[in-house]
């Protein structure tokens, strides 16, 4: 087709006005649900992820109990209205795969031995999607686990990086997601050089791959700061309330 390809980067600025290594606005909130043991919201611009943690609680069915450690169950789900075209409700092959990689990423930091015979349920709901949903979901999930008081080595921090119009960019969004050349999701343990999630789609040289990893790691470190601030914020407010009583 003779359709003109849209330029996604003009004079170093992206379609939404961001520079190549800029995030969309990040919003984080911890403790947003009443019933869950832990909960959090993480937003990258228009991508809106909500996570809730239930447990550690007695594992049912009982034959799946591990006398030595807790069992982690993760479910990533996208609301049917979260995308322009309505999604089919319920599990999809995509959501099953993402649930699996989220589970593996979180498994790096949880002290499972502290909770024998239990299950920890982590639910991630994508309420509005504009790329990087698994990253936002994972960021929310690790905060929800922290709020639930699950003992952890550190938080998991995640973001995406990609290649659009031949340039390496942070936090892929909007048209960049479907029109761009490469999209990669990365998660690290806090701001450490420990990569616990990596999913890459698109053609890239080895050198570009490494540039992408470095940029994503920098991004994860920024996300980590935001997560820590949100946690501090949550508990700081608590202290003030006690004092004013």
């Amino acid at each position, binding site marked *: 087709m003779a359709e003109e390809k849209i330029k996604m980067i003009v004079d170093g600025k992206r379609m939404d006005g961001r520079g190549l290594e800029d995030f969309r606005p990040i919003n984080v909130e911890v403790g947003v649900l009443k019933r869950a043991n832990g909960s959090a919201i993480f937003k990258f611009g228009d991508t809106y992820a909500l996570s809730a943690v239930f447990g550690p609680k007695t594992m049912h069915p009982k034959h799946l109990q591990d006398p030595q450690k807790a069992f982690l169950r993760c479910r990533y789900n996208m609301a049917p209205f979260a995308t322009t075209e309505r999604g089919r409700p319920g599990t999809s092959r995509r959501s099953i*795969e993402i649930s699996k990689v989220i589970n593996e990423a979180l498994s790096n930091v949880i002290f499972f031995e502290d909770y024998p015979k239990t299950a920890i349920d982590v639910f991630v709901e994508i309420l509005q999607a504009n790329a990087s949903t698994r990253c936002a979901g994972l960021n929310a999930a690790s905060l929800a686990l922290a709020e639930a008081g699950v003992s952890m080595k550190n938080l998991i921090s995640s973001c995406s990086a990609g290649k659009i119009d031949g340039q390496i960019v942070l936090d892929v969004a909007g048209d960049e997601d479907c029109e761009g050349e490469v999209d990669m999701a990365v998660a690290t343990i806090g701001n450490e050089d420990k990569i616990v999630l990596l999913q890459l789609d698109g053609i890239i040289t080895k050198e570009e791959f490494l540039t992408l990893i470095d940029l994503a790691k920098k991004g994860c470190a920024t996300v980590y700061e935001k997560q820590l601030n949100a946690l501090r914020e949550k508990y700081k407010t608590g202290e003030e309330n006690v004092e004013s009583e």
Partner: protein
Amino acid sequence: MLKASESYVRKLVEEEMRVDERKFDEFRTIKIEKNAVKTAEGSARVMVGNTHVLVGVKMSVGEPFPDTQNEGVLVVNAELVPVASPNFESGPPNENAIELARVVDRGIRESHCIDLESLCIQQGKEVWIVNVDIHVLDHDGNLIDASAIGAISALLTTKVPKYENGKVNVSEYERDLPVRDVPVAVTVVKIGNKLLIDPTVEEEEALDARMTLSTNEKEQICAGQKGGDGYFTTEELVKAADLSILKGKEIRNLIKG
């Protein structure tokens, strides 16, 4: 079959050894038999050591995706059938089967090796659907790499049937499926602080993490997936990328040969 325990495998690897005495960067013997199934439009049987997968390609006609009205459709599915392992159960595909299929799918899709535009019959209405079905027959580790070899080998043998008056006639072929690249997936596993390739099932049970990178003929990376409960450092990922590119090239020659 007597199996080596997880702790034994880990201890061996720490001492730079493997249960089957291979080097860390050594694949088991790979055997590829093309056109292994007569009823499929394309097929391949792949053995990687004791791991055995059979891949069949069936061509059908259906509707295109709404966002790619002028392109054929690629569908990759994997079944971990109970004949392959005592740990496989019958029933709908579980997360492992789904991940396997999706990782193989992305390696093929993102390399753009199939000319999907040439598989459009009538824009927005009728296109060829390329159904790649991976049947795992014996599981001795490294299913991703074995299945990816099987999938591209099967695609390279695939013929597009005749399509007349709304009917697919599989007894007559119109042309070969247009395949213009040979993507290869190579999985690097981390055990302790060592990296090795082509793990057996015992080694997989002992691994900390795995990184699958698919590479194309130009030796570019076209898809990647990290798995397992552990992590990789950047330095380890650099080594993994080097290994995947190098081994990918060797396997590609084997597939074409």
